[in-house]
C-alpha cells in the first residue's frame, strides 16, 4: 500500500520532470529562427594552416604574460580560440578569447570595465570604439600596421585607437545558377547598371516562372542598420560624407524631399518589397528561410552582406557555387558609382585597454595585432580559419567563400566604396521600427521621412 502511495505521489513529479526535460531538450534543437547572423559556424571544415614558415620575431620578455580578448563576432569564436592557442604556442603569451554571449558587445565590455576585469583586447563595433576611445583605449597611431591598412583605419581627432579586423561588404546577393536555370541563358552580373536594368531582370525572372525572386529580411538591423545606412553612405561614397549628411540631418539643414538619395533608396526598397518571397507577410519573414530559399533557387536575390555565408552554407550552398554581389542600385544613372560599386568598409575593430592592462599586457596585445598583420601564420589564420577579408593589403591570402571572395576581388578591382556611417547606437532599433512599418505597408514614404527627420532632430539635443 505504501509503495502504491509512493508511486502515486511520485508519478506526477516524474511526469512533470519528463515533460520539462523534453521541453528543455527540444530547446537544444535548431528551430531556425535565429534572427542575427552571429551564429557560431566554423566548428566544421577546419582550415589547414602551414606553421612551418614563421619568420615573425617574438618578444621573449613577454613569455608567460596572460591577456584576454572579448569577441563580438560569434561566428569566429572557435577559430579565434584556435588562433589564440597557436599564438600562445609560438609566442609564449596566453590569449584567452571571451565570447560576448547574449549581451551586446558594448554592454558586455562596460560590464567588464565596471567589474574591474576588462579584456586586454576587445573586438567591437565602430560606435563602441568611438564611445570608449578617449578614456579606455590605447592610442595606436604609431603602430607599424597603420600603413598597411591606411585606407581602412578609423581615426578620432586624428588619433587611431583601433585595428580594423575585417572588411565587410553588403549589397544584393545573387545566386547565378538560379538565375541561369530560370532564364535558360548565361547571367552576367556586370550587365546591370541601374535600377531599371535590375527591374527588367526581375520581370524576366517572374515571366520565366520564378514567382518571387527576392528574399527580404525584416530584422531591424538589416532594414535600418544596413539598408537605410545607404542614405548616409551614398552621399558622396565616403565616411566623411556620411558624417556630413548625418550632421545636416541633425541640424535640419537638409530636407529629405530635396535629397535624391532618399527616393532612390526607397525606389529600390519598393522593388525588393514588390518581388519579396514573403510579401504576403513581410514581417513574418524568417531569416534562415531566406537563406534556404536563395540556396534552393526559389529566390535569386537576397539583400545582405558577406557575413551571411555561414547561413547560406548551412542552407546547402557550396563554396564552389557562384554567389556574388550586385550593387544597391540607386536610380537610373549608369554613371552613378552606386550602380557599379558595392559598399565595403571595416566593421569590427580591435581596441587595447589602457586603463587596467599592465605594460606587459599592452605589449603582448600589440604583439598579437602585429602577428595577425605580419606573421605568415597569423595572416593565414585570419583569412583561412576566420573567413575574414583582411583590411591590410600585405595579407596575400584570399578568402575561400564565394561572398567574401567576390568582395575581395571587387576591392582589388576598385569596385567598392569605403563609407561607414557612425550613427547613434539606437539608430538600428528606432529607425528599424520605422522601416518595418514601411515594409509592412503601414506607413507612407512621407511618414517614414518624418520619422527619420524626427530621429535625427532628437540627436541634436
Amino acid at each position: 500500500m505504501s509503495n502504491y502511495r509512493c508511486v502515486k505521489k511520485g508519478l506526477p513529479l516524474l511526469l512533470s520532470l519528463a515533460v520539462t526535460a523534453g521541453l528543455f531538450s527540444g530547446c537544444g534543437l535548431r528551430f531556425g529562427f535565429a534572427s542575427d547572423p552571429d551564429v557560431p559556424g566554423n566548428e566544421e571544415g577546419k582550415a589547414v594552416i602551414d606553421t612551418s614558415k614563421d619568420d615573425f620575431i617574438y618578444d621573449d620578455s613577454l613569455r608567460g604574460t596572460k591577456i584576454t580578448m572579448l569577441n563580438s563576432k560569434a561566428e569566429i569564436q572557435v577559430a579565434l580560440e584556435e588562433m589564440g592557442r597557436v599564438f600562445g604556442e609560438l609566442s609564449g603569451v596566453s590569449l584567452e578569447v571571451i565570447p560576448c554571449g547574449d549581451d551586446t558587445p558594448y554592454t558586455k565590455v562596460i560590464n567588464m570595465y565596471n567589474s574591474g576585469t576588462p579584456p586586454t583586447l576587445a573586438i567591437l563595433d565602430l560606435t563602441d570604439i568611438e564611445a570608449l576611445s578617449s578614456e579606455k583605449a590605447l592610442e595606436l597611431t604609431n603602430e607599424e600596421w597603420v600603413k598597411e591598412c591606411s585606407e581602412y583605419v578609423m581615426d578620432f581627432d586624428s588619433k587611431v585607437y583601433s585595428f580594423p579586423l575585417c572588411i565587410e561588404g553588403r549589397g544584393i546577393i545573387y545566386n547565378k545558377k538560379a538565375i541561369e536555370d530560370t532564364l535558360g541563358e548565361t547571367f552576367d552580373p556586370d550587365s546591370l547598371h541601374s535600377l531599371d536594368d535590375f527591374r527588367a531582370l526581375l520581370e524576366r525572372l517572374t515571366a520565366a516562372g520564378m514567382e518571387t525572386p527576392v528574399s527580404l529580411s525584416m530584422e531591424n538591423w538589416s532594414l535600418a542598420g544596413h539598408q537605410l545606412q545607404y542614405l548616409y553612405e551614398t552621399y558622396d561614397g565616403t565616411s566623411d560624407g556620411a558624417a556630413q549628411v548625418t550632421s545636416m540631418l541633425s541640424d535640419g539643414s537638409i530636407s529629405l524631399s530635396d535629397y535624391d538619395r532618399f527616393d532612390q533608396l526607397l525606389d529600390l526598397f519598393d522593388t525588393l518589397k514588390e518581388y519579396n518571397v514573403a510579401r504576403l507577410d513581410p514581417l513574418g519573414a524568417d531569416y534562415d528561410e531566406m537563406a534556404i530559399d536563395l540556396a534552393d533557387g526559389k529566390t535569386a536575390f537576397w539583400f545582405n552582406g558577406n557575413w551571411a555565408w555561414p547561413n547560406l552554407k548551412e542552407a546547402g550552398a557550396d563554396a564552389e557555387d557562384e554567389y556574388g554581389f550586385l550593387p544597391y542600385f540607386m536610380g537610373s544613372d549608369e554613371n552613378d558609382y552606386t550602380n557599379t560599386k558595392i559598399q565595403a568598409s571595416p566593421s569590427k575593430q580591435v581596441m587595447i585597454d589602457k586603463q587596467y592592462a599592465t605594460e606587459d599586457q599592452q605589449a603582448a596585445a600589440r604583439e598579437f595585432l602585429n602577428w595577425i598583420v605580419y606573421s605568415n601564420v597569423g595572416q593565414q589564420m585570419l583569412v583561412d580559419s576566420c573567413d575574414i577579408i583582411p583590411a591590410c593589403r600585405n595579407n596575400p591570402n584570399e578568402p575561400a567563400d564565394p561572398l567574401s571572395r567576390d568582395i575581395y576581388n571587387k576591392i582589388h578591382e576598385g569596385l567598392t566604396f569605403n563609407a561607414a556611417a557612425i550613427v547613434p547606437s539606437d539608430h538600428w532599433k528606432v529607425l528599424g521600427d520605422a522601416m518595418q512599418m514601411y515594409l509592412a505597408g503601414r506607413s507612407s514614404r512621407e511618414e517614414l521621412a518624418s520619422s527619420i527627420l524626427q530621429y535625427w532632430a532628437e540627436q541634436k539635443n
Partner: protein
Amino acid sequence: MRSKKKFKDFCIFGLPGIFFFAAVVIVPFVYGIYLTFTNWNGVSASKDFTGLSNFAGVFSDSAFWQSLLLTFKYVILVVILVNVIAFLLAYLLTRGIRGQNFFRAGFFTPNLIGGIVLGYIWQFVFSRVFVSIGDFTGFGLFKVSWLSDPNKAFLALVLVSVWQLTGYMILIYVAGFTGMNEDVLEAADIDGATGFQKLKNIIIPMMMPSITICLFLTLSRAFMVYDVNLSLTAGAPYGTTEMAAMHVYEKAFTSRLYGVGQAEALILFIIVACVSGLQVYLTKRKEVEA
C-alpha cells in the same frame, strides 16, 4: 545578561542576512537613485550632477509612456486571466477528481521553464507551427504569423504569460482550498445556500489570504515582464509590444541614456510598489477567519 545573549543571537542570525540584503539590494538601490541625478554613461570615470534633467527626459520620452500604458493593459489582462483560471482549476483539482495530482503537476510544468526558453518555444509555435496549420487548412486566423500583427502579437504575449503563470498560482490556490474548513461549507449546504452564494460569501472570503498572495505575485511579475517579452516578440512588430521594463533596458543600454533609463526604472518601481501595496492593503482587509 539576557540582552547580551540577544545581541549575540542577532549577530549570528540577523546580521549576515542584513549585510547581504544591504549589499545586494539597499546599496545598489540607493546608488541607482543617485545615478538618476547624474549624466553617467555607464563606463566613464566621471559623473556630473545634472539635477532633474533625467526626469525631464523621462517626461519627454513619449515611447516610455506608451510602453507603460501597454504594460497596464497587459497587467490587467494577465492578472485577471491568471487568477480566474488558476482559481477555477484549483477548485476543480481539490474536488477529488481522478488524476488530480497529475493535472496539478501538468499545469505547474510551464512555470518550471525559464521565460526566455518559453518565449522561444512559443515564437516557433506562433510564427512557424500556426502558419503551417494555416497554410494546410486555409484557416484565416493562422494564415500569417501572429507576431507580425501588433494586436495579435500583444495577445500572444498575454496568452504565453497566462500559460506560464497559471500553474504557480494553481499551487497556491490549491493550498488555500486544501486548508479550508469544510464544516462551514457543509453547514451552508444544510442551510440551503446556492453554489454562487457559497462562492461569494464563504469560499472567496476564506480564500482571501491566497488571493492576496496570488494577486501580489501576478501583479509584480506582470509589471516587470521582460524575459518573455524579449524572446517572444522583442518589441516587434515595430516596437508595438515593447513593455515598460524592456523600454527601460533599451533606453539605458541601446540608446545609452543611462540616466534617463535609470530614472524610468525608478518611476516604474514607484508605480509597481504603489499598485502592489494598495492591492495588499485592500485584499488584507477582506481576509476573514472561519
